[in-house]
């Protein structure tokens, strides 16, 4: 039996605005296992980010609860790293400064954290760009820094919130390959959010399909295709068709 890292039990989230209460998440039950690459897949505005925020502790569920490694999530913490949609790099810090920021916050010594940061900078393929400022990097490279930064803090679980959403198609394919390469080298529990079906099937160990607001979990797919995956194999296309059929009905 694999170890459960995240357990969500009957998680609901409401937002109260001037126009009344919006029910975003409704009774979501989900377990995420150790070193699993779980993809949350769903249409545009279906509360995927809200769900991630609830797990990361940036939002608190209105009812139900989330535990990570057995601890109830009440606020953000270094055991849960997040890579954001738009790059949330600090523009005033170099690549090195950004990547070593997590360990620095925890008071790790300079030499030790530099070594650690260098390891992850190398891992994401940015060797030689340590002293570059984010404004000089391309979108794909910026997201590599974001991934290295999350890794460097050695979280139990990483949340990637549509990290490749604003990249051009070519870079996006490349980054998907890269993410798998990095993850296979340094296995972590990853929850990856996307609204792109190909991306979901390419990356996932398991896909969880979310419906529109109020979001619930509609279906679950174990993806057993061997890696590296190919977008054009019959198995891939068949899965794609199968999943799209279900999504289309739910929108």
């Amino acid at each position, binding site marked *: 039996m694999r170890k459960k890292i995240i357990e969500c039990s009957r998680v609901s989230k409401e937002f109260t605005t001037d126009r009344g209460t919006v029910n975003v998440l409704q009774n979501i039950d989900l377990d995420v296992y150790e070193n699993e690459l779980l993809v949350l897949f769903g249409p545009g505005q279906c509360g995927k980010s809200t769900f991630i925020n609830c797990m990361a502790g940036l939002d608190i569920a209105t009812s139900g609860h989330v535990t990570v490694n057995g601890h109830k999530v009440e606020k953000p913490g270094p055991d849960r790293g997040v890579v954001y949609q738009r790059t*949330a790099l*600090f523009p*005033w810090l170099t690549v090195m400064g950004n990547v070593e920021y997590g360990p620095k916050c925890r008071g790790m010594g300079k030499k030790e954290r530099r070594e650690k940061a260098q390891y992850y900078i190398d891992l994401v393929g940015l060797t030689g760009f340590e002293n570059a400022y984010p404004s000089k990097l391309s979108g794909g490279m910026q997201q590599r820094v974001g991934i290295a930064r999350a890794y460097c803090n050695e979280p139990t679980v990483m949340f990637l919130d549509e990290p490749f959403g604003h990249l051009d198609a070519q870079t996006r394919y490349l980054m998907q390959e890269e993410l798998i390469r990095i993850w296979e080298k340094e296995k972590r529990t990853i929850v990856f959010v996307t609204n792109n079906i190909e991306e979901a099937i390419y990356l996932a160990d398991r896909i969880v399909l979310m419906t529109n607001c109020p979001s619930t979990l509609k279906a679950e797919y174990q993806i057993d295709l061997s890696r590296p995956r190919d977008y054009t194999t019959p198995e891939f296309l068949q899965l794609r068709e199968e999943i799209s059929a279900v999504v289309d009905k739910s929108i």
Partner: protein
Amino acid sequence: MKKKKSYIWLSILSIAFFLGLWWFVTDVIGMFKSTVLPSPVVVAQTFIKKMSSTAPDGATLPQHIFSSLKIALSGYLAGVVIGTPIGIMMAWYKRVDLFVRPVFDLIRPIPGIAWIPLMIIMFGIGMTSKVVTIFLSAFVPCVLNSYTGIRQTKDVHLWVGQTFGASNFQMLLHIAIPTALPMIMAGVRVALGSSWTTIIAAELLASTRGLGFMIQQARGIYRPDIIICGMLAIGAIGSLLSYVLQKIENRVVKGVIHN
């Protein structure tokens, strides 16, 4: 490279054109009498003489400049050192904001020079009254800009800090202040400009030394050449100060593309 060179020529041309026009309307066609608008040649002669002569106002030009600079910079530095942290604290800590804001909002619209009469009554026409006046006129832009700058901190950057377990103070130090730095530096530059303007105004009203005083004395004895000398010195020093500050800013503010 070639392009840059031609731009420099354009800048030199602009000054040459200005001096040429001035010379043309005075010495060449005599549109203005020299007792009203002296020619650039006369002003240049006066400038050279005034470098060492104390006539007619009791001090040489460098002495006047030094006096003005000393007062302006002391008040200015106090304004920056006190104003910037107050702005930062107001933006970061709600309670400080609630406590300081009512008084600050009342003081903010009062121009620096409007403090001069009260300051003269309280502290006389010496150095103190001017330093306090300049302090107030530098203080306001420093508070405003650091406040606005801190408020521009992006939520997503704060989230990153939170997920890394940074404390509130760490987030202020590592995230909010670096975000605000370009804004803070802009405030520091505005403050320098208003300090320099205010010292001259203060000296025009009441003083015994300084560039403003020199100009005011020259007006009394109809010496427009000295007045223009003083004005040009004010302009040149003001530009020089903001140039130096710009250089400092370029070094301090990192990661932003400079044009």
